[in-house]
């Protein structure tokens, strides 16, 4: 089985490529020197202390709030649209289905610019910062939440709902006790995708932030213009831990992974 061993070696090399910058960043954050050097010089926690400064904690919590609110709104809107698209036939249905995936097709950078322009033209400067960012993030998250909810709805047998109705359940009972529990893991997968999409985004945010209301990615990006201090490495590692922890918790309770990898495998 020589070719197989060669393949294993190549796969290992690709893993090395995948992890090189992440390992390097993590090690730089414990560096004692003033420069972002690898291999690091000495060991120190000073950059971690600096990373926990309000200057970095503020955009970090800002991004977390933004991601949570955007993911929830995107999930609710996505659920509505998924129900409409899967369960109903109406004129223009194909158009709406295409539209729901539109934000995935067009560059998010352009969507952000377009939103900025429309807010400028409408003269509603008050929306800059958090409200504008929520709008932009919901737009780019919606394709994920619509698709995951629609896939789960399609996979669910409609007979179960019929059975509940015929046993005398009201629509709200059917929704809360039959339909939603059955599509829960798909819907939740969508929420998690949306959260991560929002938390790691910089494209749509780039033009919608304002001083004091900026996401962590845009703040780091702005800071890189002035230099590459190791503080950024610590901040980077923190931003990496947050979604990892979230995935771990969600995977523990909802087995979202099954939803992602489970489908499409033969045998």
């Amino acid at each position, binding site marked *: *089985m020589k070719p*197989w061993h060669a*393949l294993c070696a*190549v*796969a290992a090399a*690709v*893993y090395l*490529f*995948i992890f*090189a*910058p992440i390992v*390097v*960043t993590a090690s*730089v954050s414990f560096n004692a020197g003033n420069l972002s*050097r690898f291999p690091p010089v000495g060991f120190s926690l000073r950059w971690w202390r600096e990373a926990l400064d309000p200057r970095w904690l503020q955009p970090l919590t800002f991004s977390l709030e933004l991601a949570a609110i955007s993911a929830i709104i995107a999930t609710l*809107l996505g659920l*509505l649209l998924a129900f*409409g698209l899967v369960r*109903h036939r*109406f004129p223009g249905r194909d158009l709406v289905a295409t*539209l729901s995936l*539109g*934000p995935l*097709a067009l*560059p998010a*950078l*352009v969507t952000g610019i*377009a939103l900025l*322009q*429309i807010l400028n033209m409408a003269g509603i400067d008050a929306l800059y910062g958090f409200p504008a960012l929520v*709008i932009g993030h*919901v*737009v780019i998250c919606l394709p*994920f939440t619509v698709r995951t909810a629609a896939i789960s709805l399609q996979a669910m047998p409609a007979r179960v*709902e*019929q059975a509940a*109705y015929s046993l005398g359940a009201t629509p*709200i009972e*059917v*929704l809360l006790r039959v*339909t939603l529990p059955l599509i829960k893991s798909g819907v939740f997968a969508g929420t998690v995708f949306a959260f991560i999409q929002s938390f*790691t*985004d*910089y494209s749509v945010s*780039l033009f919608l932030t304002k001083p004091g209301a900026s996401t*962590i*990615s845009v703040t780091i*990006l702005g800071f*890189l213009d002035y230099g*590459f201090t190791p503080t950024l*490495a610590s901040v*980077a590692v923190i*931003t*990496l831990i947050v979604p*990892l922890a979230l*995935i771990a918790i969600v995977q523990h309770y909802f087995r979202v992974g099954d939803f992602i990898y489970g*489908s499409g*495998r*033969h*045998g």
Partner: protein
Amino acid sequence: MIGAGDPAGELIGPRLMVALPAAFLLLFFVIPNAFLLTTSFLKSEDQVLTNQVTLQNFTYLLTKPIYLTSILRSFWISALTGMLVVLLAYPLAYYLARTANRWRGLLIGIALAPLLASVVVRTYGWWVILNRDGPISDLARAFALSRGPLVLLPSSLAIVVGLTHALLPYGVLTILSAINGINPSLERAAMSLGANRCRTFLTVTLPLSIHGIAGAFLLAFSLSVSAYATPAILGGPATATMATRIYDFLTSLDDWSLGAAMAAILIVTTMLILFVGSAVGARRASL
């Protein structure tokens, strides 16, 4: 109402159910993008938009060498990134699809894990690796390959490396789902007819996963062409791409008509790729 079906529709009404999210997308996605496209045809005088319709913005961008170079640079950077993504993602995806390793699920998870980190964060890691005091420069000096520090930044190739890294998980996901979609009995049939593993791969698996390859390439291309952070961090003024030009137009130059025109070129490029993708039956990534 018994047996009427959709419980959500019963409660909210099917019309409102579709109208609400559709209106949201219309108001905050379709209309803004339409306005931006319109702006690209408007003339601007002294940084103020006028109502004059013109093609000048486009002819200007496409004839002025510095802008044309940026557009072409974006294209070749994206094409090279797409090819590298396929070259690296394919062996990994094939390994992940065929391995009997009991940690397979975990291995897939960690191959996709970089998606959890912002591209800004991952690109910073590449800056540390590639900068003139970085490990690669040190290694080159240690082996006397270069006399002074090795200057790898800023450069277009550094941007390609950063983008390849940023988009690799999408490539793995797309190709993995294409390989997983191949019926394994076809490979077994080829083997039982005497083909060895290499030949089976070349004559059965590879041709059957070609849509995944096309999908991974086109996805990486379309995401690269509009990427801003990677060229902003690993590139410089001499390696400006479409996205960094747009940023300059809208911030330091405050020229909305040229910015909108460059954005329009970006939109047309992405739509074209989408069109090519559906024409060749390319697989779309499931994330």
